[in-house]
């Protein structure tokens, strides 16, 4: 009995010791200098064409994300330790300034350099959509689901997927598709060209031996009668034309969807686990803003860009028919965006509280005011509490840094840009379009307010020379003020400076201004500070806050050539 007891005690001590050492090891950071991360290698090197892989089954994908993966994350102690220490695993593909460099996944656009209204309207477009003046040859079709769809080749030889709005909801899916593609493109993602098209059904011609997924899910040859039947399930305009979305085939050879977790083993360029990619984690913030509740593998596409068997894989987001207020086959159900489709937490909470717990979404109106918009509200919208149909592993790994990065994408859109994008959706109801614009703006601002409060929103650091004495000053932009979320007057800033880890100045208050100069004291002391590293820590406090918030640290290095900003870190 005594031996058993002793063994138990030894086991407990051993466990405590291992945990303590682990925590100690992970917590040893010391007063080290900033080491810029290795540059992210370009992932567009010429490689052999990877094999095609089909989309995962919707059920298995959903079950996997909702249960298998959640269980795995729950039992990963290292994850819990990191989270407890507020040091979650950060995205891999970030530079010293926390930015994601251009890659086969993402191209810095609006947040990097604001696009003009013309550029944002064109979006990913290369033309004006399919040629509706001549015959469209149907080469593929699907009848299953509420709304049918075709793949056609127009007179120019371009391939388009033609998708329709649900009956009674003209503009619902098509508007969402067009707005989604333009906004995600402007943010930096690769997306297909989506156009609103109005066509005469008489231009449709059935191609030879068209395979067709009928209403029962059977793959068979399509007949004229099937086409006629499918056309009875779409809305006609008074002019006799049909409104639809024309989604152009993305360039390159299709390789199937990408997963939000892991890597593609047969693509040497794919060397970063997808759940640790900044642009996929940060996508959650965009998804929350636009209510993109269906961010799953099946709504992505990889294509091979290249010739003679050599090229690289480009990664696309596709299918925006279920964003904003559109649920694809009608307006989104009210719970979408607030709960997963099968949300164990919500189910348990409702069950044990005997239904007395009423989630906020239940207070949203059940009736749909604007059929072309569906259910898209800013009331009760919370950027961090947003949930998609099934959990997404990249979203699950979102950290404050990723959220801040994503919020910068969202906040990069001006009211004018959004107005132009909404106009491109050609909604039949102008009042509805105004409502959508207003909601987009409100949700955008809520997104910015949340993330810019959670992470220090000072950005765009640069060194400027003072004209009077030639000394260098560090300037920054307060993104919250620049976006109009906070006022200049309400902000107070203070800074501390360390040189090679030694504190030189501590907590100096700086006057409130949109662009605040922070005097860099060490600049004119070349003898002892050559090759020295300087850390400027800046904190912000708003009038409505009791104390200073989280810090941002800017690192400068003095070299023979002068002073350079070498990196930025933010408190998570």
């Amino acid at each position, binding site marked *: 009995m005594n031996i058993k007891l002793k063994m138990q005690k030894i086991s407990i001590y051993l466990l405590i010791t291992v945990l303590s050492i682990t925590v100690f090891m992970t917590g040893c950071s010391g007063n080290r200098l900033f080491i810029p991360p*290795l540059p992210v290698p370009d992932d567009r*090197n010429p490689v052999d064409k990877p094999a095609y892989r089909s989309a995962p089954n919707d059920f298995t994908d959903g079950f*996997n994300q909702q249960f*298998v993966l959640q269980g795995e994350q729950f039992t990963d102690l290292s994850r819990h330790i990191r989270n407890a220490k507020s040091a979650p695993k950060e995205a891999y593909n970030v530079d010293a300034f926390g930015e994601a460099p251009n890659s086969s996944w993402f191209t810095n656009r609006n947040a990097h350099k604001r696009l003009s209204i013309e550029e944002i309207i064109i979006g990913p477009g290369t033309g004006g959509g399919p040629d509706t003046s001549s015959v469209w040859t149907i080469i593929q079709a699907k009848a299953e689901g509420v709304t049918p769809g075709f793949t056609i080749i127009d007179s120019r030889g371009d391939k388009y997927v033609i998708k329709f709005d649900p009956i009674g909801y003209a503009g619902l899916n098509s508007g969402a598709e067009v707005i989604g593609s333009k906004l995600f493109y402007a943010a930096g993602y690769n997306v297909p060209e989506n156009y609103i098209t109005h066509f005469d059904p008489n231009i449709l011609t059935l191609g030879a031996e068209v395979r067709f997924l009928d209403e*029962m899910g059977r793959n068979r040859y399509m007949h004229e009668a099937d086409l006629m039947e499918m056309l009875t399930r779409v809305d006609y305009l008074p002019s006799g034309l049909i409104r639809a979305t024309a989604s152009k085939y993305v360039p390159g050879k299709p390789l199937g969807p990408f997963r939000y977790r892991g890597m593609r083993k047969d693509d*040497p360029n794919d060397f970063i686990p997808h759940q*640790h990619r900044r642009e996929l984690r940060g996508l959650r913030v965009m998804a929350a803003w636009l209510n993109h509740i269906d961010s799953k593998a099946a709504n992505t596409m990889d294509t091979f860009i290249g010739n003679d068997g050599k090229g690289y894989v480009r990664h696309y987001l596709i299918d925006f028919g279920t964003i904003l207020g559109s649920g694809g086959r009608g307006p989104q*159900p009210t719970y979408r965006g607030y709960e997963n489709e099968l949300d164990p937490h919500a189910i348990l909470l409702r069950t044990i509280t005997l239904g007395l717990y009423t989630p906020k979404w239940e207070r949203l109106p059940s009736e749909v005011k604007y059929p072309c918009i569906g259910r898209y509200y800013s009331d009760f919208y919370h950027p961090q509490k947003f949930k998609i149909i099934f959990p997404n592993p990249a979203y699950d790994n979102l950290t404050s840094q990723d959220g801040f990065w994503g919020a910068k994408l969202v906040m990069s859109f001006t009211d004018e840009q959004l107005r132009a994008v909404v106009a491109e959706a050609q909604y039949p109801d102008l009042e509805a379009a105004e409502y959508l614009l207003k909601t987009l703006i409100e949700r955008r601002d809520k997104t910015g307010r949340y993330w810019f409060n959670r992470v220090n929103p000072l950005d765009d650091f640069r060194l400027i020379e003072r004209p009077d004495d030639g000394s260098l000053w560090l300037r920054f932009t307060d993104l919250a003020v620049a976006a109009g979320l906070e006022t200049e007057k309400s902000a107070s800033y203070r800074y501390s400076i360390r040189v090679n880890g030694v504190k030189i100045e501590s907590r100096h208050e700086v006057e409130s201004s949109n662009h605040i100069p922070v005097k860099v004291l060490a600049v004119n002391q070349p003898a002892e500070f050559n090759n020295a590293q300087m850390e400027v820590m800046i904190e912000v406090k708003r009038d409505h806050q009791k104390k200073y918030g989280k810090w941002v640290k800017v690192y400068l290095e003095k070299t023979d050539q002068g002073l350079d900003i070498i990196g930025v870190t933010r408190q998570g």
Partner: protein
Amino acid sequence: MLFDMKTIFLSLIVVSFLCSCSSLADDNLTIDDVSADSSITRFVASHQKSTWEVITAFPGRAIYFPIKYALKGFNSTIGWIDDEKIVQKIDDFLNSDDGRRGIRPTYSDQEGAGIKFYSKGLHHTDVDRNILKVYLSGREYGRQRYKITLLDFHPFRNGIDASLALQYRKLPTELFFGIGSDSKQSQRSGVTHEQSSAKITLGVNPLESIRINAVAGYDFNYTCSGKENNTPPITDFYSPEELPGLKEQVEMTHGLVEILFDSKNRPGNPTRGFDALFSSGIYQQTNGSEYGYLRYSADIRKYISLFFDRVLVIRMAVERNDPLSGRNIPFYSLAELGRIETIRGFERGRYRDQDMSLATVEYRYPVWRNWDEHGVDFLLFADAGQVTSDIFSELDTDSFKTGLGFGIRMWSQEGLTFRIEAGRSDDGWRMYFALN
């Protein structure tokens, strides 16, 4: 035994360890796998997991390994079923493309497991008319039911519709505890009730929410000892002379008038409105003159929307069976308490007498919704009721029998898909399950 539990357990640990070690590398790409590009190699190497992460992640991964692969196995099976469209193929095989014909599984405590075949729109373009339904069900001890119904036929041009139902059922495990509200559980006895019946209904809808039915029916009944093991047969307690209808072939005809109100907002999970059935009729023996009675009944349900789809259902039901002068009521036709439809927590047929009163309060709240097309509700209920020989003179709320419980019900737009309920009464707990 070739492999004892200890060996299996140790093997599992070893397998878990090996697989966890390999799965730990899920997030990391080994340097050999990437191209010779040194910048990529260095970059990948800089993001390998640290030792402390590998160490601390191991126990959880090892524990989760068998669960993970069990879940994955289940997931793959579901995926295979979905990919192969097994459910769709079965559905395709059993149900017609246009939804006019189909087969559904059924289950109820009384009838057992079975199937329901339906064919809608027989010789008619409107699928909601001319409906044929065939039920076949059975369970242990030879319990069985066969029923054919023809619904919503319109033989006349004046809006009157007709329905016909033919049924045979043999219920060898019915229970009898005696007559009156003081019947004891110790008097539990088994009885077989065999019944063939035919019923024709003519109905009209004078208003959208009101329906009036005229019903004429015939049924043949026979009862004898029950077949259930461990339940003493009824003949051990009663002789045919003591219990009207026992071991006797009784043919009865009946004529009824029914008035139905239905203002529910939806059939599957109503949140507002009410439904009610008022019925009055006469039952008379045709192969003799011993049995004959009048029956009056009312059953009213009110659905009150409390807040956000939380619904309170209040039900009141009464039944009065009044023997015609000088005649009796067969014991199996008496009013009854103790089924899922009455007081949950008691066995079927627990209390029988001429009259019955019942009150139920049920609180339903949603726990899951899918597009407002399907949903799962949790429910709490309290049932109370009493059987008496005369509802007007003997009704006594102090001696009401009560049942409390909870349950889950899954609904679709068409109606209730299944329900599982557990009720607690003075007799203990009872579980109920019903499908389609």
